[in-house]
């Protein structure tokens, strides 16, 4: 917000210059804007990031759905939406109009108030998450010094909405979905936070902006990304898995597993309430992708990023490019993998992810204390690979066996 606060007077001046051309009210308004009082400047500085978050990210959501449908289609050798507008570009708008005009069905036995409240609540934490995501060099709506902690706290709150929706619908499938959602989010919170701890240790700060800054520099602003560290790579995978589970993306979409429990917690939702649930879910998943980018993929850092207007624009480009990459990765995974079962999901979280993230924290400690980089590389890599092999052997021995088949004589 500091950045915005600095830029805001200039923006207003530019605006007043434009408005100066208008007759009648143009002059006084321009005068007001060119020399604004402090409270107005503050209000504008607050309003700009809010407007940005509220307009850009739902737009990204809308086109994520389109990209998802197109990409899934292509993965499945289909064409995907191509009827509304060129290449189906107006499809999200058509979907929105359709969902707005659909009948809103509330089950007779539902708790009507909670049933109504749940989709509203589903959106709020998802939007709040963006307040700590730095979208460019120094461009973060709120630079909280506990940004990461805030993000985890808020993202967990979204499960409340799912549970409210599932409970209020008075539907057995909804209830099952809600229970699954709670169990899943609670279990995945732990390894995810622990994976983030590694980053926090390395960056020495809980602020998202500070973490992103810590990954700048190096060759082309690339080599210092945490993902190019042994512990960072492992942390990235752990965190991505956790983020996908937290935002209920395939293969962890068990709260709304359509082949098992119809649609989970939003079975009884239709029309725009359903759209709000979708919006909340996608926004959360985009925000978690943004946080993943910030923590491991260097945030806004990339070739050419830096302070100043041009550097800022380039840094925004890099951030959104990486965000797009993360979204495409989730879509790709969704098009390929089957869904895991609820108990497997749990045991995976507690038996593989949790130990691995603790191991990862130790690895960061080693990295920190071994001053000679090549040795640190070798030691941490060995440490992590050994543990990975052990844990995967343990995990595989429970579930997976190699089979031989015979033929009848």
């Amino acid at each position, binding site marked *: 917000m500091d950045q915005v606060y600095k830029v805001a007077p200039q923006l207003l001046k530019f605006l007043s210059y434009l408005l100066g051309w208008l007759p009648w009210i143009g002059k006084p308004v321009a005068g007001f804007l060119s020399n604004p009082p402090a409270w107005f400047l503050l209000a504008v500085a607050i309003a700009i990031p809010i407007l940005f978050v509220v307009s850009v990210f739902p737009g990204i959501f809308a086109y994520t759905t389109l990209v998802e449908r197109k*990409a899934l289609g*292509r*993965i*499945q*050798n*289909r*064409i995907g939406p191509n009827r509304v507008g060129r290449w189906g570009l107006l499809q999200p708008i058509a979907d929105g109009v359709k969902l707005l005009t659909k009948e809103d069905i509330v089950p007779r036995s539902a708790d009507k108030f909670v049933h109504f409240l749940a989709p509203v609540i589903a959106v709020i934490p998802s939007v709040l998450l963006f307040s700590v995501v730095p979208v460019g060099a120094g461009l973060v709506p709120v630079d909280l010094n506990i940004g990461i902690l805030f993000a985890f706290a808020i993202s967990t709150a979204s499960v409340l909405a799912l549970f409210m929706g599932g409970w209020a619908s008075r539907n057995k499938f909804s209830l099952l979905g809600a229970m699954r959602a709670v169990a899943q989010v609670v279990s995945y919170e732990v390894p995810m936070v622990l994976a983030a701890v590694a980053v926090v240790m390395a960056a020495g700060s809980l602020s998202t902006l500070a973490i992103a800054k810590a990954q700048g520099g190096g060759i082309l602003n690339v080599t210092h990304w945490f993902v190019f560290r042994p512990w960072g790579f492992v942390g990235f995978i752990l965190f991505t898995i956790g983020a996908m589970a937290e935002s209920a993306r395939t293969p962890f979409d068990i709260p709304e597993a359509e082949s098992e429990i119809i649609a989970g917690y939003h079975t009884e939702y239709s029309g725009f309430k359903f759209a709000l649930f979708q919006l909340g879910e996608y926004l959360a998943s985009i925000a978690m992708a943004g946080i993943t980018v910030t923590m491991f993929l260097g945030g806004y850092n990339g070739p050419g990023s830096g302070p100043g207007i041009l550097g800022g624009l380039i840094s925004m480009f890099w951030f959104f490019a990486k965000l797009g990459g993360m979204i495409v990765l989730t879509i*790709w*995974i969704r*098009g*390929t*993998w089957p869904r895991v079962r609820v108990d497997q999901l749990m045991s995976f979280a507690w038996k593989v992810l949790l130990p691995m993230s603790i191991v990862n924290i130790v690895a960061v400690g080693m990295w920190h204390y071994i001053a000679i980089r090549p040795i640190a590389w070798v030691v941490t890599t060995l440490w992590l690979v050994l543990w*990975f*092999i052990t844990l*995967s052997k343990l*995990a*595989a021995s429970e579930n997976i066996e*190699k089979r031989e088949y015979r033929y009848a004589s």
Partner: protein
Amino acid sequence: MGFIGKGLFEGMVVTARNFVGSYFDKERLVTVQYPEERVQVPENSRTFPFLVFDKDSDPVASMRCVACKICEVECPPQCIYIVMDRDEKGKPQQRPKVFDIDISVCMQCQICVEVCPFDAIKMDNNYEKSQYGRFDELVEHLPELLKSNEFYNKIKPTEATAVDAKLKADAEKKAKKAAPAAKPAATAAKPAAPAAPKPAPVAAPTAKIAIPDDAPFTPEQRQWLSGYLSTVAASGVAPAAAAPVAGTPAAPATEAPAGNWPWHDPGLGMQRRLDLAKETPIADKLMAAMAQTDCHACGYDCRGYADAIATGAETDLSLCLPGEAETANMLKKLMQEAGKL
């Protein structure tokens, strides 16, 4: 077995290849954008039945269907409904007055085509038959069902060519058979010679009865006379008297050699046919009671069915579909008279 997650990544490689392949490889993107693009349906493809006619000038008269009702009986979901056309006197016209196919019931099985002995009903390959209504709109009536032989040749060239060849051969065979029969009947038999078993236009069967071509009548007189004669013939009133009126050897039956069956003419009425077969053995009488379409609805031709009944090989007397109840009752009566039932 490699590390855990190897299979997952292999799977992602496969989907990535399909994703990219769908842009470059036609084999991978098989979608056809329906209203703009259409798949070329194979020649064998079948949807709903239609009725074939031969002459564009007069579809109704030249349709091959003789309303024998075989398809109606054999149709597994019972979606065909046929009423035979009759003139004012109630004489069967060997063509349907009503031919309805309920395409909401039809299951496109092609059994009607297979059982039709006249190659009259064939399968279309038009699959766009949606209608706005649920009821009457989904019933196809005779006018919609009638399609020309050219159309049939267009949609199914191989099959239609074979059918045409077969029909032509049949017609030639019939013509050859008819030729010796026509000789003793001299001039009178000429109108009966038209080879195809198809009914001629409405006036044809009546004109066929007796009036020779060279008889000195004006067209109007001829028309009146033939109408009168057919009335006489159909009602069965004084047929013996009617024949002399024609002034020519109008009763070829008595002179016909064995093996030629003068009553074997679907244009004649039941009574007339029976009269023609009056003095003959029971098998011939039975045959005369049939509808004379040789439709094979009973599994035989008319001769064969009559013989089978006469010898006792066939006990079911209700097999003659084109003859409807009239034939069945007459067969029963004849068999009772002969003391065989």
